[in-house]
């Protein structure tokens, strides 16, 4: 901390390099939108949030000192804008289910225990996907199943899996951005990925 890190994207942006900014928009827009939807639910509102976050970035660029990476800084702004938008919306709309009690931090098993025998070994193991054509496993329809599975997760798991797996942040960066411990990050990520895998098992059988 404190030390400014080497970041070519940041230097290009501060120098007013339009092509660098355009490339950032193209790389981050999708993950930013998914992240915004973690907080506000409605796609149109999420699009507004992303746009506002970008404009905030442009306006604050001069003050950005580079103590974090540019990417972390940008996504941190998305989180702030989205959270404050959610607070505004929740005054109008009941959003009680948002921070509903959830099992995100629980260490309870993520796999149905009836699938194991009394020795703890698989009784009904996951069916192998080796015989399913790769074109089916990796098809757009399968990606949509993943999207739906992520959207159905409790918010605490959703923000972690979106930052780690969709936006591609490194493990420690996710916990730092969200202000949670690395251990919480891993537990939530584990529950989220297990839920996505389960949805895929059901879809691909």
């Amino acid at each position, binding site marked *: 901390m404190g030390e400014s890190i080497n970041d070519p994207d940041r230097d290009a942006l501060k120098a*007013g390099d*339009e092509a660098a*900014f*355009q490339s950032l*928009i*193209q790389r981050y*827009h*999708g*993950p930013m*939108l*998914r992240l915004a939807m973690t907080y506000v639910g409605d796609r149109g509102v999420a*699009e507004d949030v992303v*746009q506002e976050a*970008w*404009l905030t970035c*442009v*306006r604050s*660029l001069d003050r950005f000192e580079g103590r974090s990476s540019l990417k972390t800084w940008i996504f941190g702004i998305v989180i702030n804008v989205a959270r404050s938008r959610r607070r505004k919306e929740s005054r109008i709309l009941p959003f009680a289910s948002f921070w509903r009690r959830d099992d995100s931090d629980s*260490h309870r*098993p*993520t*796999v149905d*225990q009836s699938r*194991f025998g009394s*020795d*703890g*070994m*698989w009784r009904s*193991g*996951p*069916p*192998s*996907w*080796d015989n399913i054509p790769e074109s089916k*496993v*990796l098809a757009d329809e*399968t*990606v949509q199943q*993943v*999207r739906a599975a*992520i959207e159905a997760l409790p918010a605490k798991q959703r923000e972690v*899996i979106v930052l780690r*797996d*969709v*936006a*591609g942040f490194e*493990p420690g960066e996710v916990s730092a951005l969200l202000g949670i411990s*690395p251990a919480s990050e*891993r537990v939530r*990520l*584990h529950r989220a*990925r*297990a839920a*996505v*895998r389960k949805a*895929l*098992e059901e879809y691909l059988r």
Partner: protein
Amino acid sequence: MNCRQVVELMTEYIEGTLPSDERTRFEEHIAGCDGCRAYLAQMRTARTLARRLADEPVPPTIERELLDAFRNWRRL
């Protein structure tokens, strides 16, 4: 280590945070267990598919508006 324990360590394994002794026992189990090997491959596939959600094209009007904002900021 049995399958019930191994499945709950999958993320720690993939993230590379499993202590080395546990990692060794995990890998020994996986080597001899088709079910857990399939489960691990599926956890990795879930991650690969999630990454694809990032490939969302930017609407051209939004891109233009943001580039304009960037240009104006430069002129200030």
